[in-house]
């Protein structure tokens, strides 16, 4: 199925990443958002609140981020495509409900426009310090899908993908923007609705008597039912059986958690997406995502002008991490340089996948500003010596 032409603002626009993310959500069919305003993410829901009556959607401003993040899960069980938007401290408050979404297999999208932390940190300035929190922030074992846009155009594109992944895998999906990408204005081309592919809801067509809400299909993912359609279901964060009822025992825990983890891990290759630049002969491989990938690309160009064989791997899907590609590159590269606006998060994944086959160098930044390409170039030169 494709997007609804009545809601899609087809054409070229000059807009910032936050507004583009909102339009991406609307194009993806989002008809419910709940949020509690927080800089630098507010423009997304501000625009959604303005557009909602025009596209038949609902926006709820909630009392806090806990309420926002649970409201979207209720909305999803009521048949909506739903998302919430936050940053920094708000993201910390949402962790409980990201886990609940994973446990209850509720399709949902959480947008985090990253700002400097910890705590209230730098409300108006960028960072990429929530990469590991996005993966591991809620308790217990679960898998997450997370996407990292590097431009306003990608804010649009990846919001559509986020909703598609959420529906396809019945999982929470996190869009990890950063303040720079959210607040920069560039050309954004919104395609015709007929060009925007949407993954349909996995609503069951079985007779109500035959429906088991958590009985997985061969791909490991159960069919969904919507409240009010006549299906009986029970939703709980407790370990549950195929009926959705609590089953507090080790075998059921093994079956359920094994399936929740497996449904993402077993499809990691299908979910993976990365942009590669000059990797064919690269000895020095830069790894960077979001806004940082753009300054890293500039540094790579400068290195190439000096005949240093540098290349760039830009994970677009950051979780699951593209570890297979890192392993392949580690077998022939001299060094990875991980450029990130934090004190070393995704570098751990690169190091783990490289497993000592080549050197891994971290180029950290505490946030508040992006790396200077010249500073990255210095590290490239050193690594190439």
């Amino acid at each position, binding site marked *: 199925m494709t997007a609804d032409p009545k809601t899609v603002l087809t054409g*070229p*626009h*000059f807009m910032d990443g936050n507004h583009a993310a909102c339009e991406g959500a609307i194009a993806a069919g989002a008809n419910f958002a709940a949020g509690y305003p927080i*800089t*630098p993410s507010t423009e997304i829901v501000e625009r959604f609140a303005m557009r909602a009556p025009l596209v038949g959607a609902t926006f709820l401003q909630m009392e806090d981020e806990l309420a926002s993040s649970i409201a979207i899960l209720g909305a999803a069980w009521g048949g909506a495509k739903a998302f919430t938007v936050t940053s920094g401290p708000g993201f910390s408050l949402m962790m409980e409900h990201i886990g609940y979404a994973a446990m209850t297999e509720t399709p949902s999208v959480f947008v985090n426009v990253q700002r400097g932390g910890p705590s209230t940190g730098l409300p*108006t*300035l960028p960072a990429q310090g929530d990469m590991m929190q996005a993966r591991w922030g809620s308790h217990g074992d679960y898998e997450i899908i997370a996407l990292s846009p590097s431009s306003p155009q990608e804010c649009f594109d990846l919001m559509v993908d986020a909703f598609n992944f959420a529906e396809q895998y019945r999982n929470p999906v996190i869009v990890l923007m950063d*303040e*720079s990408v959210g*607040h*920069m*204005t*560039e*050309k954004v081309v919104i395609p015709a609705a007929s060009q925007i592919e949407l993954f349909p809801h996995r609503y069951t067509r079985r007779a109500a008597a035959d429906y088991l809400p958590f009985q997985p299909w061969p791909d490991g993912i159960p069919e969904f039912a919507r409240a009010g359609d006549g299906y009986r279901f029970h939703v709980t964060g407790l370990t549950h059986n195929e009926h959705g009822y609590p089953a507090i025992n080790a075998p059921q825990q093994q079956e359920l958690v094994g399936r929740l983890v497996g449904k993402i891990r077993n499809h990691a290759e299908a979910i993976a997406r990365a942009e590669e630049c000059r990797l064919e002969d690269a000895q020095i491989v830069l790894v960077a995502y979001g*806004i940082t990938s*753009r*300054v890293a*690309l*500039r540094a790579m*160009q400068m290195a190439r002008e000096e005949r240093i064989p540098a290349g760039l791997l830009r994970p677009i899907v950051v979780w699951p991490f593209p570890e297979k590609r890192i392993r392949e590159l580690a077998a022939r590269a001299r060094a990875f340089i991980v450029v990130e606006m934090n004190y070393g998060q995704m570098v751990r994944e690169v190091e783990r996948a490289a497993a000592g086959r080549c050197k891994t160098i971290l180029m950290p930044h505490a946030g508040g*500003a*992006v790396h*200077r*390409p010249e500073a990255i170039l210095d590290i490239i030169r050193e690594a190439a010596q």
Partner: protein
Amino acid sequence: MARHEIRIAGFGGQGVILAGMVLGRAATIYEGRHVTLTQSFGPEARGSAASVDLIVASEPVLYPYLTEPDILVAMSQEAYTRFVAALKPQGLLLYEQDLVSCEPARCDLRALGVPATRLAEELGRKLVLNMVLVGFLTGVTGLVSAEAVQKSIADSVPKGTESLNTSAFHRGLDYAAALQPAAISK
């Protein structure tokens, strides 16, 4: 690789951001160039100060912030004082001449003044001084074509104000055209 860095700065209510949006939209939507616009969202931008930064380039913009502005449009004294030092050597300074006195002066700059507020008042609305300045910048630099800016104005300003804003834009263009060529090329 041509990369032009422009900063427009003034105080809240002068339409600083809209001026940047009009120029950026003209360059990217109507001329197909690569444009990145950023605004200062920090606490230093609170109160009366407002500024917008534009990069207009022939290639994709990778580093999204200004490094050394080629052009500064100063619409207030504070904007001049705060930003003139960052302008690159031999850079272009355009200023609202009734609101800005270029002191202390940098003698390496090309500095051109325009009474944008007064010209806007002559059109009946002081509010459109930003479009006078956009016209002045367009006329002096040729950075973006007048046709592209006109289309961009029509997309960017509130409905019903298109002709007033376009008149203001032309007032700025005309003011630039009337300057001695020597003053412009220096």
